[in-house]
């Protein structure tokens, strides 16, 4: 590994810890820094203890892991479509996951069946795969990357419209959380949620990392990858599966979160100045975690006690990056 990359990784690690500390230390309840540190190190009891361990820790951790999952899903989709502005949100994958997850949630609430986190992930996964299937069908017919993105955005709108429709007519006290979830939020995470999130995301991260070598060859071009002995069909299937799973996991727990999947991999590529997946995969994951933790902190604190939707914040910081990318476009981008 080059020295610059080592430094960049150290910087990412430091930023991760810093963002984690900020998220644990700030919130609508006023808990002093020394008290927070004391609770984390020695435990304790009372309201402050509960707030830290039952609210802030699960929330910060889920922002870290889900943010990483989103950035990684974006990176994998970008490799698959050879398009730097592909991502789970713009391709409608998040919205597809949101639709099926909302249907299952409402169905469960109406029939009074308790809904496990794993079932939510499963439902979201079906939606994300359905959206990806649509996008893949379209990508065979249209040439040009901008068309693909436009189609993805349209799929996203359709899914969102149906979701909103369903939610509007399913007003029920049981699904009071549904609204905040459907606009995207890390609030209300429990330790149990975090465990399920870890159980889905970590294997997907490891799986992606193990694909580093063929992914690097695939990045050079499909025909070259074949000529070097890569099983391209298997690789493409794995890419779709992994990115769909990651996006589904994020959506099941936090709802749709926009722009992280595009903006973070782009920034990471710029910082590391490399296209090697073996470096970009862990770096994107950390970068996504940092980005989402910082955005979530802003969402919680800027207008406290009112919370902003997480997508509102990620869009404010993420969308300009995407616009800049498109303007600077062809020169340094993935399409060269």
């Amino acid at each position: 590994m080059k020295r610059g990359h080592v430094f960049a990784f150290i910087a990412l690690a430091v930023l991760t810890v810093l963002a984690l500390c900020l998220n644990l230390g700030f919130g609508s309840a006023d808990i002093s820094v020394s008290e927070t540190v004391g609770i984390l190190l020695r435990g304790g009891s009372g309201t402050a203890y509960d707030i830290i361990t039952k609210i802030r820790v699960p929330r910060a951790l889920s922002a870290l892991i889900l943010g990483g999952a989103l950035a990684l899903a974006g990176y994998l989709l970008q490799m698959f479509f050879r398009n730097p502005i592909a991502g789970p949100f713009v391709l409608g994958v998040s919205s597809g996951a949101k639709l099926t997850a909302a249907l299952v949630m409402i169905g469960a609430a109406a029939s009074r069946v308790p809904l496990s986190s794993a079932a939510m992930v499963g439902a979201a996964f079906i939606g994300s795969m359905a959206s990806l299937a649509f996008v893949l069908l379209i990508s065979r017919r249209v040439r040009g990357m901008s068309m693909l993105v436009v189609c993805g955005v349209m799929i996203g709108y359709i899914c969102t419209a149906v979701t909103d429709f369903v939610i509007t007519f399913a007003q029920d006290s049981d699904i009071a959380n549904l609204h905040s979830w459907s606009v995207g939020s890390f609030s209300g995470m429990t330790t149990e949620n975090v465990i399920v999130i870890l159980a889905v995301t970590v294997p997907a991260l490891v799986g992606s990392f193990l694909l580093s070598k063929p992914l690097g060859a695939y990045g050079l071009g499909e025909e070259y990858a074949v000529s070097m002995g890569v099983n391209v069909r298997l690789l493409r299937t794995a890419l779709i599966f992994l990115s769909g799973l990651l996006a589904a996991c994020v959506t099941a727990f936090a709802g749709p979160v926009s722009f992280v999947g595009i903006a973070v991999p782009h920034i990471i590529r710029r910082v590391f100045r490399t296209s090697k997946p073996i470096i970009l995969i862990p770096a994107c994951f950390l970068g996504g975690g940092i980005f989402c933790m910082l955005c979530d902190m802003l969402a919680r604190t800027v207008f406290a006690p009112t919370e902003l939707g997480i997508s509102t914040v990620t869009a404010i910081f993420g969308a300009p990056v995407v616009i800049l990318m498109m303007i600077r476009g062809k020169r340094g981008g993935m399409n060269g």
Partner: protein
Amino acid sequence: MDNVKIEARSLCAGYTSDILTDVSFSVRGGEIMTVIGPNGSGKSTLLKTLAMQLPRRGGHVYISGTDADKLQPRERAKKISVLLTERVNASLMTCREVVEAGRYPYTGFFGALTDNDREAASEAIRLTASEEFAERDFNAVSDGQRQRILLARAICQQPEVLILDEPSSYLDLRHKIAFMETVRRLAAEKNTAVIMSMHELDMAREISDSALCLKDGRVFCMGGADGVFTAANMTKLFDVSEEMFERYINTYNKERM
């Protein structure tokens, strides 16, 4: 004598129907065979099939005597490497990194390069005279330099058979000549069999040891370069009148005489 690196027997190839029928040939180590013929005659289909990009529809291909179907993809990749017309997407890669990508079949699970791999890359860069721009961004170099780097990538794979699909199309005369010289040097030094499609007949005649002419998906004629590159063959192959052929192709040769 038996230095045959690649042999095709009654090869049939195409996408949904046969574009090529009954093509047989063999190329030895150190030999350069050019594939020529009009547009749409099946040159690209032939090269893609030999490079295993397209499944064969009939016939056999043998690599150093082994049936190509029996080779694992990784083993095959150590024996055949390609330079294709597909655009290479290599943003944020230096030229050297593109060359090193050719080591893929030799590296371990995570693709870490050994000193041996780095040495092979450096040698390929030297062989293509690309040292000067090896550390630059691949997207920032000229077309000619890019083509040399892609050739270096193919060389770096240390193949027994090198397949080049119209490698000189985007190069100016000087770079064309330099490119061909490199290919010739490589074939001789590394005992590599080279199969190359091209449109420039003058240059093809100069560089080839043998030639395979395709027309309408069949072998029109083949053999040693001297026997194939005759005015009679070429006018028939490309459906041009002898007068036009003389005017446009043989001009320089006549002036020299």
